[in-house]
Structures are given as C-alpha cells and as structure tokens.
C-alpha cells in the first residue's frame, strides 16, 4: 500500500536522505530499497523519485557521481553531502516530535 502523494511529499526527502546516508545508490537501487525496506508504503516511481533527487542535488543536500556499476554499466550514484547530513538530523528531530504528538492524540493506536 502506498501513502497518498500529499503525505509522501513531506516524507520523501527525509526517506531518500536516510537511505542514501547509509550507502550511495543509483536510482533503480534506491527504488528497490524504498519498496523493500518500507514494505511498499513509501515506494516511489521514477516520476517522483528522479525529480526529488534532482531537487535535493540542486539544493546541495545530495551529490551525484557517474561511475561504472557492478553490472558494467554507467550509473549515477547519489550520496549525502555534509549539508544533507545536517538537514537530515534537523528533520529527524521534527519528525520525532510530529510522531509523538500524533501518538498523544491516539492517531497511532495508543489512546490516552
């Protein structure tokens, strides 16, 4: 099950940054990792993923490098920049607060 686009818009950047902070990946790998590690909830198609990557790259949060993949084909690997790491940390704090607040309201299945 995928979440609605409006919800994903806020979660997309931090999700991608989080995955790429663990290791550099190219587009297809990233799509697979998103689908696999979030049970498809945060899966993104190319139509969403690549514009998101270009946006983050333009803001200096990601850095893309073309190099030869294990398949022998040239692929663009994305990695998180120091600026991206700082951004990720600040967003993580905000997400924790958001999730805690939603939990207090019983939206996460824990009624007060």
């Amino acid at each position, binding site marked *: 099950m995928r979440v609605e686009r409006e919800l994903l818009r806020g979660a997309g950047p931090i999700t991608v940054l989080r995955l790429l902070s663990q290791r550099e990946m190219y587009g297809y790998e990233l*799509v697979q990792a998103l689908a696999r590690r979030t049970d498809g909830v945060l899966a993104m198609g190319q*139509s*969403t993923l*690549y*514009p998101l990557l*270009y*946006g983050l*790259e333009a803001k200096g949060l990601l850095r893309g490098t*073309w190099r030869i993949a294990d398949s022998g084909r*040239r692929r663009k690997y994305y990695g998180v920049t120091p600026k991206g790491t700082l951004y990720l940390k600040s967003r993580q704090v905000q997400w924790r607060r958001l999730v805690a607040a939603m939990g207090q309201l019983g939206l996460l299945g824990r009624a007060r």
Partner: protein
Amino acid sequence: MRTDLDQLELEHRALRRGLPVALAAIAAQVVAEARLDPLRRDAVLEELIAHFEDGLAAGCSIAELLAEFGDPADATALLAAATRIPRSSDSTIPPTRRLSMLPHIVREARFAVRRLTKSPGFTATAMLTLALGIGAMTSMFSLINAIVLRPWPIAAVDDVYDLFEKAGGTQPLTNPDLGDFERGTKDVFVAVAGIRYARAQAGEGASTAPVAVELVTGSYFEIVGLPPSFGRLLGPGDDVAPGGHPVVVLGYRYWERSFASDPGVIGFARFGSTAGRTGSWAWRPGSIKATCGS
C-alpha cells in the same frame, strides 16, 4: 513542433540503447515535455534509460515498469520544477556527455543559420537594430563613465569650484579678470587657477605629433593636490612674468607612451611659442626645465 521533434530524437536515442518502444516513448515524452536545457535533458534521459535497463535486467515486464513509473504528466511537471532550482555545481551532467554535446550545439547553430537565411530582410533588420543598439549603449556608457563614474583626479574634489563668467551666455574668465578675482577672494579661496585647453605639436626634430595640452596658471597643481612622479610640478613661482617660465608637466601616460617612462626626460624640453589655441613644442636638450606629474 519543436518539442515533437525533440521527443522523436530522444525516442530514437532510447531505442538505439535497446529499450522497448513503450519505455522509450515514455522516457522521451517526459524529458521532451519538461523543456530542459539540452545538457540536462540528455543527462535525465540517460538516467531514465538506465532505470528501465535495470528493471528489464531484473526481470520486470514492460507493463510492470510502466506501472511503476507513475504519471508522466506529474513527472514532467516535477522535473521542470526541480531543474529550475539554481545549482552550485552540475553533476547531473556526466563529463563524457558534456563533451558529446558539441555536435548538438553545432546542429542547433546550423538550424538557427538556416532559419535566419530564409528571411534575410528580417535578419538584416534585426542585426542592424542590434548593432545600432549596442553601439548607442556603448557610446552612452563611455560618456557616463567619463563624466559621472570615473572620479576626478583631484585630491579634495568637493572643495573645488569651476567658475565661469555669465554675460550673454557662459564664458570663461579672461586672464585679467582671473587676476582680479583671485585678489578679491583671497579670504574665500585658498587658491585660484586658470586653465585653457589647447592643441600643440610636440616631438623631436622633424617628427612631431599633435597633443592636447592645458595651459595653466601657477596655482593649478596646488588645487589638484597630487604629487609628481618625477621632478617637480608648477608652482606660483613659475607664474610671475608672462612667457618667462615655460615649464612643462607631462601626463603620466604620455610620459610612458612617448618617452618609454624615461626619467631622463626632465630638463630635456624646449617650449615653443603658442599662438591662439595652437602652439608648437620641440623636445630637445636645453636648459628649460620639464617636469613630469602623475
């Protein structure tokens, strides 16, 4: 029309890479409709092709890949928005693609030339308009730069006044009037100097050339307040008897150009006669002192 042509070209490129028609078409459509600049367009297409290649290699069907892709219209809008963000460094474009863009640039240039030659009247008018516009703007800027932007080479420029006599129009002061004015305003002005612009012939022997000169009174350099590079400047002591103190101060650039910055030029000049707004100077060894100021 242009987008359609771009899309066809991009689709052919994707097909040449071995993509099935349906996948090549969607990649080309999204990239073409996003109207990216040529370098980024090629890089984005390359990444979309790579994605489909990986999907096919992983055993996905065309239908699955199309379904995973998402809405092409969304992709177009998001791509256009994302690539409008100003970037500090453009790693979107692989180095090899940057080099391979040359044929595209040449092709675009040839297309532009063909279009222009098809309507020579329009082209000529446009070029003439541009030439006139650029020429006019350049002249205007030169004038503004000379009058407004470039500061005067005067130490205390805010304390200097340009005086004219106003009698039936603006007229410069005559030499006797200047003397009267100087004597009558000793408690107002620190110094008063007269300047007269003239043209003269300067050179050595037969090789003379026209130069623009200023005939100035003794207090001129006291007002300008700039130190000489070599030798000395004019002073009030050089302005006692009419024609009795023919001292020359060379402009720094003139000194560089005509004397190759030779400091030996000091004491090397003879001042010729001046008549009306023209005069003749001859550079030759002599006893008359010449000075060189910046």
